[in-house]
């Protein structure tokens, strides 16, 4: 029996997002009961919920002198309807835990991000998108309902009930209150395998054309780009597309247990890893090896869903490879009409600055239904940059200008350094969203370093 007195103790911890930049000393509480509402944490000017700490920048860091409310002990499954594919869980349950429960029963996540180590609350707050965004949309499309603790009390919301709070909370970065539970509509699968197609492309234009062609037959698609390739190889990459494999696609042992869940504990990265090891040379080597990972121009493979969706989860703590100074993830959305020109300009600017991204991903996206949307019909480009010195940041500011000029946006769950005025120019939806937040939180108690930096 755990005593409630122990549960509301707060401690001070040095926290950061997944990028290890920025770091902030925060008071941190780990309430055990989901019923605990924000009023229990008196004495702190602001509160922000934190799940697995997998947003990259400062979205889950509390402002100075404020409190991080960790949802990690609110990790109970509440209901699972195997007939309808409806799953209800508390906000601290991770997607990995959900996968372990649903895959053996023939269900899957309707939208899958790049890691299984995120909490349900974080998934909603970031309105995560996956490799199927162009067709399926972000996670908001599959949220039946959610419960959020605001300053004005707890609300059950859905499309039918408190819809404005629903659409402001999904993709609301925790700023409408603390999400305590949610119900997701799952999707049916026959197997735990992906029928995947890999096509090498010589440049960005071909990548985009191939991707648009493949998305007619494939649910998932994404382009890996070798951001370090120069000269005639500039913009080369691999288009990857896939569908959930049908039972009839499997043979042998796989067919006998088509829904077997194969998760094996990952390897762990060393606690201290010198950042210089991940330099442009090793980066280039990795990207070269990746570009030549299969012979010929095209390959068709049946792959397990884990490496398809979560390749990086195999190494626990892979963020430490960037060394103590951390890294910045840069993800932008560009509208359909300007994406080719904008993407090219971004890649050229990055090349000119001598920057290299270890993993660069280009992918099709569609419309976004939330009040403060990131996605738009177009493309998204995601890159990571190790922080080796202050010279990185002015270059990123220039990238922001390119994005803005092409009518694009920066994804806040990955951001750690965007400027408030640039942000405002990118997100004209801000006043409408803020009106909803303030309606339920007149004192704006729920704030993060992100919201203060961007004056959200």
């Amino acid at each position, binding site marked *: *029996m755990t005593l409630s007195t*122990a549960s509301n103790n707060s401690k001070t911890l040095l926290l950061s997002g997944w990028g290890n930049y920025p770091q902030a000393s925060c008071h941190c509480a780990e309430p055990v009961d989901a019923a605990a509402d924000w009023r229990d944490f008196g004495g702190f000017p602001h509160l922000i919920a934190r799940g697995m700490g997998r947003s990259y920048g400062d979205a889950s860091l509390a402002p100075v002198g404020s409190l991080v409310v960790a949802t990690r002990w609110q990790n109970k499954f509440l209901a699972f309807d195997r007939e309808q594919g409806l799953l209800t869980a508390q906000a601290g349950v991770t997607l990995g835990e959900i996968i372990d429960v649903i895959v053996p029963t023939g269900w899957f996540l309707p939208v899958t991000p790049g890691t299984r180590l995120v909490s349900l609350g974080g998934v909603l707050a970031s309105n995560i998108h996956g490799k199927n965004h162009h067709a399926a949309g972000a996670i908001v499309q599959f949220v039946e309902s959610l419960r959020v603790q605001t300053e004005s009390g707890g609300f059950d919301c859905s499309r039918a009930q408190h819809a404005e709070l629903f659409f402001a909370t999904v993709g609301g970065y925790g700023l409408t209150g603390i999400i305590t539970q949610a119900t997701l509509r799952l999707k049916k699968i026959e197997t735990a395998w992906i029928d995947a197609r890999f096509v090498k492309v010589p440049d960005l234009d071909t990548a985009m054309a191939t991707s648009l062609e493949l998305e007619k037959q494939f649910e998932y698609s994404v382009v890996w780009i070798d951001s370090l390739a120069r000269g005639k190889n500039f913009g080369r990459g691999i288009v990857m597309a896939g569908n959930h494999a049908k039972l009839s696609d499997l043979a042998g042992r796989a067919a006998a247990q088509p829904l077997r869940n194969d998760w094996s504990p990952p390897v762990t990265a060393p606690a201290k890893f010198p950042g210089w090891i991940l330099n442009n040379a090793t980066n280039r080597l990795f990207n070269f090896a990746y570009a030549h990972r299969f012979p010929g121009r095209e390959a068709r493979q049946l792959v397990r869903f884990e490496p398809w969706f979560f390749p990086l989860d195999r190494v626990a703590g892979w963020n430490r490879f960037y060394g103590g100074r951390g890294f910045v993830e840069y993800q932008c959305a560009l509208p359909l009409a300007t994406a080719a020109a904008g993407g090219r300009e971004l890649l050229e600017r990055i090349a000119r600055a001598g920057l290299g991204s270890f993993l660069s991903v280009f992918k099709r996206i569609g419309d976004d239904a939330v009040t403060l949307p990131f996605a738009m019909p177009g493309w998204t480009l995601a890159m990571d940059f190790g922080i080796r010195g202050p010279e990185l940041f002015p270059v990123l500011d220039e990238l922001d200008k390119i994005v803005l000029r092409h009518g694009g946006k920066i994804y806040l769950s990955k951001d750690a350094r965007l400027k408030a005025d640039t942000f405002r120019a990118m997100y004209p939806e801000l006043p409408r969203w803020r009106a909803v937040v303030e309606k339920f939180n007149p004192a704006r108690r729920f704030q993060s370093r992100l919201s203060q930096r961007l004056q959200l």
Partner: protein
Amino acid sequence: MKKILVLGATSGVAQAFCRAALRRGYTPVLAARSLERVQLVARDLEIRAGQTGIACVEFDAAAFDTHDGFVRAALARGPFAGCFVACGAMHEQSLAEADWKLSREMIDANFTGIVSVLNRLAPLLAAAEGGAFISCITSVAGDRGRSSNFIYGATKAGLNAYLEGLRARWHARGLFVQTIKLGPVDTPMNAGVARTPFMVSADVAAEKILRALEARREVAYVPGRWAVIMLVIRLLPRFVFKRMKL
């Protein structure tokens, strides 16, 4: 279907123990102070394990006069392969020194309450066919009275001695009594404590506890490295120990 009675079932370690036990084909019967909270845990376990029918019984370690009734109610849900005891409380030493209520709470939850309930359970479990077990969580803190945590440590030291005697008392009748000396585990009990270097997750601890149970180890440090650490600490002479800030 082999059943295990789990006392203090809402604790972080107990929940992880139940998840691991379910994977091994056991069905836990959950006993805890708050019926509302333990029912939430039961539902969670059912969904994770893909089964139904995990029963809950109300159990308050500190309400000694309810223990006869509890044992009757619990055993009606049997027969049991054994009992896993995970109830306990920990308060910060300085607070417990200043406030008798907090000391008392630890003594009741960690020692008196467990003695009260195991006194009644042990004979009934010993009468079960095939040799039942009692596996009880104590703590490395019970090995020596450290200045930073000795009220909690004393309750666990008392429990260690009790379990050793219980083992001797019932061993001829086939009841297996196991002492789990647990190091710090990342659970809500330690929520007010900064993560220590040797802290393990509840899932790791639970897996090791079940392995120790399967191997029938009478006394097991979990994780095993604590056996070495505590050996060194036990060997420290008193004149050194009393001057150390441990």
